[in-house]
C-alpha cells in the first residue's frame, strides 16, 4: 500500500475553486472518448495526472471533488484511487520531486550511498521538502531501469548510473531552473536513451 494510506490529510481544503484550462478540458474529453459509453471512470487516473501537473504538483480535496464532478463519480471514488497510487501526492511537494530507487538491484550498485549523499547535499531527510520549496526528496521502489543503477527520477525525467559528481551536476542545473516556469510539456522530459 502506498505510504499515503492513512497518513494524508485529504480532507484538508484550501477553499480554492479549481478549473482546468480549455486545452486540458479538450484533452480530457479526448481521453474519455477512449472508453465505452458510461465508462468515463476509466479516465480517472489519466485525469488525476493532468490535475497534478496543472494544479501545482499535488492533489487536495478541492481538486478531487472537482474531478469527481467532471467525471460524474462520487468524491470517495476519487479519494480511494488517489490514496492508492504512489505517484499521486496528497501533501504539498517542491518544484522538483527527486525520487531515488531503494530496491535490491540499485542497492547492490551503491544506491544507498547515493541516498545518503542526496540527504547530505539537500540537507533534508527522506520525505521532506527543502525550505526554499525547490526540492522534495523521496525514496521509491524499483523504477524498471535496474541495468542502469543507481537510478532516480526528477519529476518524470530519468537519471541513470548516478555518481556523486552526476548528482552535483543535476542539482546545480535544477537550481538554475528555479525561476523558470515548470513545463507540462512532454518534451521537457529529457529523453532517457538506453544503450542499444
Amino acid at each position, binding site marked *: 500500500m502506498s505510504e499515503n494510506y492513512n497518513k494524508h490529510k485529504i480532507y484538508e481544503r484550501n477553499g480554492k475553486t479549481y478549473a482546468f484550462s480549455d486545452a486540458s478540458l479538450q484533452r480530457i474529453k479526448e481521453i474519455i472518448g477512449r472508453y465505452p459509453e458510461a465508462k468515463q471512470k*476509466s479516465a480517472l*487516473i489519466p485525469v488525476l*495526472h493532468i490535475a497534478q501537473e496543472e494544479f501545482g504538483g499535488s492533489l487536495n480535496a478541492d481538486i478531487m471533488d472537482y474531478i469527481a464532478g467532471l467525471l460524474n463519480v462520487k468524491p470517495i471514488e476519487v479519494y480511494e484511487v488517489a490514496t492508492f497510487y*504512489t505517484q499521486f501526492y496528497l501533501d504539498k511537494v517542491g518544484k522538483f520531486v527527486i525520487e531515488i530507487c531503494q530496491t535490491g538491484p540499485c542497492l547492490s550498485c551503491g544506491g544507498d550511498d547515493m541516498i545518503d549523499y542526496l540527504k547530505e547535499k539537500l540537507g533534508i531527510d527522506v520525505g521532506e521538502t527543502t525550505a526554499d520549496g525547490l526540492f522534495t526528496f523521496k525514496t521509491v*521502489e*524499483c523504477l524498471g531501469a*535496474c541495468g542502469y*543503477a543507481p537510478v532516480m527520477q526528477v519529476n518524470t525525467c530519468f537519471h541513470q548510473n548516478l555518481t556523486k559528481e552526476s548528482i552535483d551536476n543535476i542539482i546545480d542545473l535544477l537550481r538554475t531552473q528555479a525561476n523558470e516556469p515548470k513545463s507540462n510539456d512532454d518534451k521537457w522530459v529529457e529523453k532517457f536513451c*538506453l544503450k542499444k
Partner: protein
Amino acid sequence: MGRKILLEKINISGIESFDIYRKSGGYSAVEKALKTMTPVDVVEEVKKSGLRGRGGAGFPTGMKWGFIDRKSDKPHYLICNADESEPGTFKDRYLMEHLPHLLIEGMICSAFALEAHTAYIYIRGEFKYLIGILNNALSEAYANGFLGKNILGTTFSLDIYVHPGAGAYICGEETALIESLEGKRGNPRLKPPFPAFVGLFGCPTVVNNVETLAAISPILNMGGDFYSKLGNGKSTGTKLISACGNINKPGVYEIEMGITVEDFIYSEEYCGGIKGGKKLKAVIPGGSSVPVLPADLILKTAAGQPRLMTYESLAEGGFETGTMLGSGGFIVYDEDQCMVRNTLSFARFYHHESCGQCSPCREGTGWQERLLTRIENGEGRLKDIDLLADISKHIEGNTICPLGDAAAWPVSSAIRHFRKEFEFHIQFPEIVKNIRHGNIDKYL
C-alpha cells in the same frame, strides 16, 4: 552470435519510425494475417509455436487465446501489460523505446486473432517518456492505414490507446490491471471467472505482456512450426533477459533458450563476467519474486548438470535447489553483497506494494519487513530466523493473487541458502554494523 528474432532489426537506424520499419519488412505479418488467415488460424499458429507468456508466469499463449469466449455477444478486449515493475526487469521498456512498431504490429495481429476491436497498452506511470514514443508510433500506424476502420481494406477495425498507471506494482497482476483500467484501486479479483470470460468492463479480455505480443509477428512470418524448433524443448524461441547487478555489461539481451547460465554470465556476448573480477555469490534469474540461488546451484543443478536458461532447467530441483525463469529479470550479486540487506529490501518492496486486501499478505509482508529490519540492525534473535520462515509459509498460497507467493519466496529462499549469514548478523551485530558492503565469508 545467438539468433535474434525480436531484436533482429534493432541496429537499423531510424527503426522506431514507421517508414523505416515498413521498408525493413515491418507490418508484413498484418498483411498475411488479415488477408490470408482467419482469426482461428492465427490462434492455431501461435499454439504451434509453443510461445509462453513472457510476463512471468510462462503460460502458453495460444492456449490462453483459445479460451476467449467467442460466443459472447459482448465486445472483446486485448490489453498489453506494460506495467513492468518486477525488480530486475527492464526489457519491455527497451522494446517499446526502440521497436514500438514491433509491439503495435503484434497487437494488431493478436487483436485480429481475438476478434477485439479495442486494445489498451497499460503502461506504468513512471515511463512517461515512453507514452510519447508510443503515441507517435500509433499515429503513424493510423496515418498509414494499419489502425482505425477497415484496416488494409478488410472488414477488420482496431483502435489502440495508451493508458498510464500511477505507481503500483500490483497493477502488473492482470486482474488488478483490469480494475485499474476501470479507474479503481488495483485490487486483484478472485479467479474464476477468468478474464477470457469476464474481464475489462465485464467483457471477454486477454492480457499479454509486451514481449509476448512483440513475438507474434515474427511467429506468423516464420510459421509456428519453425519457431517451435528454436530454443530447447518446451522453452521454445528466444527470450529477452534484462541483466543487472554486479556484472560488467548490464543490459537487455535476447537469448535463444537453452544456452547455459554460465555462458550467459561469463561470455563477452552477454554479461561479460562479474565486475572487478570478483567472485559470483548469488543470482536471482527471473525478477525479485523467484527464489535466489547461490553460485554453485545456479551454475549447476543439484544433480551436477549444467543449468540452462530455460523454464525447465532453472526450475529443476523444485524450490529446494531450483528457481524459475520468471520475467527474465536476471540479478547478479558478487561476493561483497549482503544477503540480509538485499532480502530486507525486497521485503520492504512487497510490504509497500501489497494492495492490502488479504490479511496474510498485508500483515505478513509487514512482519517480514520488521523482523528483517531488526536482524539487519543487529537487534535480531536467533529464533527470528525460523519465525520468518514460518511467516512466509503462512503467506504462500493463502492470498487472492500471487503477490503473496512473490513476497514469501525471496525470504524463504534466502534463509534456505544463506542461513549462516542471517545467524552471523544476529550473533555479531558489531561486526556487521561496520560493513555495509564487504565479503563476510571469512567470518562464517
